[in-house]
């Protein structure tokens, strides 16, 4: 899923200084699963905004709504009438949701309530880890299911750097060295072919470095 976390409240409050009627739009997709932007978080944030505004001595209306997924144009559109009642919208969707809501009412300020962080999942209660950088050219089939793009700080393709030691990453010794893991797993499986070959430079043009990415599925496009 897309993992996100709440922006620090003071940063959001700074953006809300001039607001009078705020719509907090939650999303029932990934951000609800990682408990950053679902219905409950939307209600809590609306309440926090009202309390903060009250303490500032200029009360603000803040209402929470939620749609199943802000990244579906139909669901985003369905928020149009509620958005019309507000002067500022705080989207608790990922960046896609924020962008889609802004397209629904281009004249309105739609603020991100979250920092969209990474493609990942829960590894233990309350702990989320990155697993996918969405580079558009998946190599997991050759690397034992461990991603050198998402999990190696240097995007290496040919084994661990000289800064890693004892299976720990140079950047943060709390983190496992992805290449140490890849080598261990492939060796244990007896699949050393990929380890022996010199992996050619990656084509980053599929990784978002060639501009916004777009997929056209002729079989689905009407």
């Amino acid at each position: 899923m897309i993992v996100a976390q709440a922006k620090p409240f003071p940063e959001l409050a700074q953006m809300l200084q001039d607001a009078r009627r705020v719509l907090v739009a939650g999303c029932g997709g990934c951000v609800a699963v990682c408990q950053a932007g679902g219905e409950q978080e939307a209600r809590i944030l609306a309440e926090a905004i009202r309390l903060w505004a009250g303490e500032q001595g200029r009360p603000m209306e803040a209402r929470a709504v939620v749609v199943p997924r802000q990244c579906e144009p139909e669901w985003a559109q369905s928020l149009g009438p509620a958005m019309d009642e507000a002067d500022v919208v705080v989207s608790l969707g990922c960046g896609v949701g924020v962008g889609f809501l802004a397209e629904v009412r281009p004249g309105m300020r739609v603020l991100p309530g979250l920092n969209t962080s990474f493609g990942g999942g829960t590894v233990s209660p309350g702990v989320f880890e990155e697993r996918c950088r969405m580079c558009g050219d998946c190599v997991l089939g050759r690397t034992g299911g461990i991603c050198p793009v998402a999990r190696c700080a240097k995007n290496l393709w040919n084994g661990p750097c000289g800064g890693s030691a004892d299976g720990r990453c140079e950047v943060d010794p709390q983190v496992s060295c992805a290449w140490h893991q890849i080598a261990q797993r492939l060796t244990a499986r007896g699949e050393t072919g990929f380890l022996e070959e010199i992996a050619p430079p990656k084509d980053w043009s599929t990784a978002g470095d060639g501009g916004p990415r777009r997929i056209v599925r002729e079989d689905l496009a009407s």
Partner: protein
Amino acid sequence: MSRLAERLAAGRFVVTAEVTTPVGADSAPLRRRLELYRGLVDAVNVTDNPSARVHMASWAGAIAVREANCEPVLQLTCRDRNRLALQSDVLGVAAFGVENVLCLTGDHPVRGDHPQALPVYDLDSLQELAMLRGLRDEGRLAGGGKVEPPPRLFLGAVENPFAAPQELRAWRLEKKVRAGAQFIQTQVVYDVAGLASFLEAVRRRDLQVPILAGVCPPKSARMLRYLAEKVPGIVVPPALLERMEKAADPRAEGIAVGAQIIRAVRQLEGVRGVHLSIVGWEEELPRVLEAAGLR
């Protein structure tokens, strides 16, 4: 052919030394350091934003080394350059007669003086080696375009014999040689037995590449402790640390330690030279070499 390549081919035990370029817009401090090295070493490595801290460009330093009639080894990391910049920098220095290029992945910016920087890592050091070999041998850019004339290059790589597990290091060294590495400079050696066992793993893979062992005479016990604790992959035997701590004259002791390590690694099969890091007290280089019986 680079002088370093010639001397290695002739079977001479070579000495390279490291210079760090200044953090400033004047090459005079660099030229002063080169004065100390001239005639004593076979080549001078010019570091490239070491520890991910900004310094004068290594290509500019390498040209300054040429101008000082010394032979440069250009260090070129993948951290700060994509494949376009790596190739254009190499063509640029090659036009000024720089032939030795040491290909490195580079320390991550998070440990440097600009931890907010976007790291590049378009290529890794093996891909850099293979790309530069193609530039030289086929006269082709990575993108397929023609290079006229191709650069003359003597390509090097680094390896850290002490970062466990050792077998993974020997495997990666072999890949570097296959990718085009013609010489290897190692991480700083304090643990000679550790280097010996790494060299054994290298020999099992039947690699003939010349290896220059990294030697950094410790200036003080404090410096040695810093290297042991803060630099990933440097192994300092506790007895050595104790020896430096007890030394009445730490500088003299450090020079003796450096010389002793040089003499020890020189006995190891596969070691074809030493690479000295004596940054901050370059003036002692002649004494270290003399004590090691190299000059």
